[in-house]
């Protein structure tokens, strides 16, 4: 922290809280602190998300770690009076949970001690994201300096390979290996693209990372650029992420002013410019080749692979596309080493994972936990348990994710463990549902989403998603055909095998997992007497013989 005050008030200003008046609350806090003559003892700091996301404007007190939620402007006078004049917690708005405590990451080992180490979100909710000095004060841009002055690109890639970091966008592809593909290419220029098109419903971890610690992402991109030989980076970001865009733009400007981005970074001959491109809200543009099409001004549709982006990506040049969270992991890995990183998480999936927890839990919000903790731990240790009723199911990884039933509460959340039970980790959304939720209703929503977002390029996904939606519509009305589930299952498998891109392929995830765990409930929508009136070839006009 850059300021020497006795206490600091952290005001979490992110895309959600802005709408609840967080900026006004910050101003009011400063006014009140000044009015009480406390301005040299208490400072008010704007920061990114502090964690809880369904508690309105949240403010945190440092160093005590108290958090206050649902703060409104008219509470401020009383709050300052109670907390800082009288010196006692302001009970009315005090939250049960505390801010995540500071721990020494250098000596931390997730398998030896119980939780709490944050890698990606280390600075989030602590520093002012709009003040580059604060980022630098936390060790920011050190990793980039080290890399540029002391390491060859090959060494950087080797560190990434050794760390075992896997892409956090959903597919979990090893990051170091991905970098090595683009690095091998002789063609230039090359590009680094930060995929910030976070479109998976219920996932907004990337937004909170960018809002809370934008420089971390930029530093990761620059390191990647150095490693693969690229001098230009693009952040492809959802147009709706206005605060992220503002903060990233400021961060880029500030870093360029200090020579940390732009020309001759750290006085070396390495140049790296970062530009921002806004997406127009299409889900499929989170898929890397669709993203490239969108960036080039074409229809947001996937491209054939091969060629892979590493060979022919943006403007047909070698391109490395990484997710925001992946890039936010880079600087700490460089600073602390691959071995340190591997102390977090599991052997196969080292590191932490940032999740947004939503649904019927007491504390929904943003958490960062080591890879490999169980779903039960997430719900009961981090999310404060189920808010009402019984746990029924969870969908992990957004709408394209699998549905897990209670029997999987103890499965470890990491790439390998989930694969072993036939599921995927996905993008980082965990949606918890209690027994009030109907599987059919829920899947109908998912299918509506896919139908809406299918790009229309391949026949299977274009028509298949529509047919899926119609099937669940019939199930909901209890008018489904006698063989509806069989057809749904066949169609899901067809979508999975034959779709052009992961969008269509992943429709099968929620559908097949729901059939696996909730077949009986799904069957309730079937009307056993409802049969198809088949249209035969004669009726369809299809002619039998060909000359």
């Amino acid at each position, binding site marked *: 922290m850059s300021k020497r005050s006795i206490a600091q008030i952290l005001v979490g200003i992110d895309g959600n809280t802005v709408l609840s008046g967080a900026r006004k609350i910050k101003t009011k806090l400063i006014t009140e602190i000044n009015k009480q003559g406390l301005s040299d003892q208490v400072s008010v700091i704007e920061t990114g998300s502090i964690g809880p996301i369904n508690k309105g404007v949240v403010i945190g007190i440092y160093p005590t770690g108290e958090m206050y939620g649902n703060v409104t402007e008219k509470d401020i006078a009383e709050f300052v009076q109670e907390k800082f004049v009288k010196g006692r917690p302001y009970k009315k708005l005090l939250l049960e949970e505390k801010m995540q405590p500071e721990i020494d990451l250098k000596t931390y080992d997730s398998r030896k001690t119980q939780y709490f180490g944050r890698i990606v979100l280390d600075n989030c909710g602590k520093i002012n994201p709009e003040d580059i000095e604060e980022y630098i004060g936390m060790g920011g841009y050190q990793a980039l300096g080290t890399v540029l002055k002391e390491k060859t690109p090959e060494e950087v890639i080797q560190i990434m390979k050794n760390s075992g970091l896997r892409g956090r966008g959903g597919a979990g592809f090893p990051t170091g290996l991905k970098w090595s593909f683009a690095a091998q290419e002789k063609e230039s220029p090359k590009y680094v693209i930060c995929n910030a098109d976070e479109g998976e419903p219920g996932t907004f971890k990337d937004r909170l990372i960018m809002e809370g610690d934008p420089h971390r992402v930029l530093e990761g991109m620059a390191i990647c650029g150095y490693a693969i030989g690229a001098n230009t980076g693009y952040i492809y970001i959802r147009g709706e992420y206005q605060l992220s865009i503002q903060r990233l733009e400021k961060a880029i400007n500030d870093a360029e002013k200090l020579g940390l981005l732009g020309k001759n970074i750290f006085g070396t001959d390495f140049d790296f410019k970062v530009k921002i491109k806004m997406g127009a809200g299409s889900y499929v543009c989170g898929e890397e080749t669709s993203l490239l099409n969108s960036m080039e001004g074409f229809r947001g549709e996937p491209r*054939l692979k091969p060629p892979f982006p590493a060979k022919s990506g943006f403007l047909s040049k070698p391109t490395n596309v990484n997710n925001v969270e992946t890039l936010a992991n880079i600087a700490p890995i460089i600073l602390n080493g691959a071995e340190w990183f591997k102390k977090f998480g599991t052997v196969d999936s080292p590191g932490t994972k940032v999740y947004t927890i939503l649904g019927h839990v007491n504390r929904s919000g943003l958490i960062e936990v080591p890879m490999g903790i169980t779903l039960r731990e997430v719900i009961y240790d981090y999310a404060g348990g189920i808010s009402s009723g019984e746990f029924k199911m969870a969908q992990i990884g957004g709408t394209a994710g699998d549905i897990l039933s209670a029997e999987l509460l103890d499965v470890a959340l990491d790439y390998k463990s989930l694969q072993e039970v036939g599921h995927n980790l996905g993008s980082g959304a965990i949606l918890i549902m209690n027994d009030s939720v109907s599987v059919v209703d829920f899947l109908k929503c998912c299918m509506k989403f896919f139908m809406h*977002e299918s*790009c*229309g390029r391949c*026949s299977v996904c274009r*028509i298949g*998603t*529509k047919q899926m939606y119609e099937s669940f519509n019939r199930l909901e009305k209890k008018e489904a055909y006698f063989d509806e589930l069989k057809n749904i299952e066949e169609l899901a498998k067809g979508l999975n095998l034959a779709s052009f891109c992961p969008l269509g392929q992943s429709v099968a995830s929620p559908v097949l997992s729901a059939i696996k765990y909730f077949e009986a409930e799904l069957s309730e929508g079937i009307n056993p007497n409802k049969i198809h009136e088949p249209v035969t070839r004669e009726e369809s006009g299809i*002619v039998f013989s*060909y000359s």
Partner: protein
Amino acid sequence: MANITINNMKVEVPEGTTILDAAKTIGIKIPTLCYLKNVQEPGSCRMCLVEVEGAKTLQPSCVTQVSEGMKIHTNTKKIRDTRKIILELLLSDHPWECNTCDRNQDCELQKLADEYGIKEVRFQSVKERLPLDESTPGIVRDPNKCILCRRCVTVCQEVQGVGTLAPRARGFNTIIAPGQGNLLSEAVCVQCGQCAAVCPVGAITEKDDIDKVWEALDDPNKYVVVQTAPAIRAALGECFDLEPGTLVKGKMTAALKMLGFNAVFDTNFTADLTILEEGTELLTRLKKVLVDKDKKVALPMFTSCSPGWINYMENFYPELIPNISTCKSPQQMFGAVAKTYYANKIGKKKEEIVVVSIMPCTAKKFECNREEMNASGVKDVDYVLTTRELGKFIKQAGIDFVNLPDEEMDAPMGISTGAADIFANTGGVMEAALRTAYEIVTGREIPFNGLHVSSVQGLDGVKEASLKIDGTKEEWAFLEGVTVNVAVAHGLGNAKKVIEKVLSGEKQYHFIEIMACPGGCIGGGGQPRMTTDEVRQARIKAIYKEDEGRKYRKSHENPAVKALYEEFLVKPLGEKSHHLLHTKYSSKKD
């Protein structure tokens, strides 16, 4: 070379071969719908999926290249089930009107449904009906039948560089439509019909004018003449399952006579006439530039026979209007001459004559409806049928085409030369023009083997030739020692390349031949489907064979054309010619 196995059979094919092509070498046909060789390999219909051992999902065989040791399965249960699902999905999104569809028994979807034994479709149809687009004279779009294979989009955007058709909206609501509006007439469409030529189903077709022709034939007060474009004789046979490149001029003539046309004529007749008019125009332009130093005369001169090209030019490059030959296309010259000269000859009024054209082209339907195409005082050409429509027309009349005897076309407008035949293919108009122009200027035959300008033949997109003129006749002495540079482009995408080079000054030519369709008219938008490069080659070969078998091979030798000038027109570019055979263009650019 890569050693692979397909269905456990060992195959050795060159590296880089697609699985689809590799399978073909051992007699395995993998079904495709969106794939069209040399046009697009988008891998998006998913019909061609195969299993590759080790791959997580099924792989599209039209784009997946083989690699050493690859083990491929093309016909497992998994694949069959998947293909069935895809077909059933497509059929659930398709109107079941096969019996009344233009493509009945000529439909790729219908054929696959038959081959895969689709007996019922497990998915309910959820299709909403969209209106037909019949807004243009040449093309009809039925978005309901569209399977979104996007062949039309690729030819419109990439091959033709027009960019009218594009996918709009997304997901299940995606439709292929003109990018600017919902109707073709509101968009920039050159009517070339290449979209209709590649459509695997009945979503894009020519506008059907068969009934109008029946009506004319049934009307005892009408004298109905028919003209057949040079490209028809090398393609019509395909409508009757003859090999591409089978010459059927004699059978076609016999069939047209059986259909009841009062006279069966040839567009070749006016192709020869075009050469005389256009050749004279070129020489006149050269004279004005080289001798009179007339700055108002534009070179290079572009040909004007292809109505798709004219539409393209008026929409995209109106600045070229002074460069375009003022000659009407042979079709329109035919109409104008038939309703004046010929009508007079047989003692009929122009109103009594109906001119029907058989064209390889959809843009010809547009052309004959242009306002200015009534030089005779009435509409010069009344109806245009495509090659495909003629095929159906003959079938409707119950004519056993394949077994017809050969017959000769009628005089005088059925008389033509080999130079007119080659109007059918790319490079042909250029060759025909050079055959005549060179001889006019020098008094000698063009000094090439078999009279062929071989450097402008073939399917390269842009071709060039240079011809040094010496030994000129006295009146053409200004051309002595001049090297005439010519270029030939086919397909509008290639035309654009040449035009850009001309406009930038990178290239200087005297004369440029443009045909809107790839391969020229033999690859026209109204030809039997599917016109692949092999088919184009076969048709071109047949056309040259026809040319070489002719008594007359140079347009100026055509005795009927000579008579036309003596009896009626007087001379090329004369007053009558100017009125009947030449036209004006106007900018259609916004």
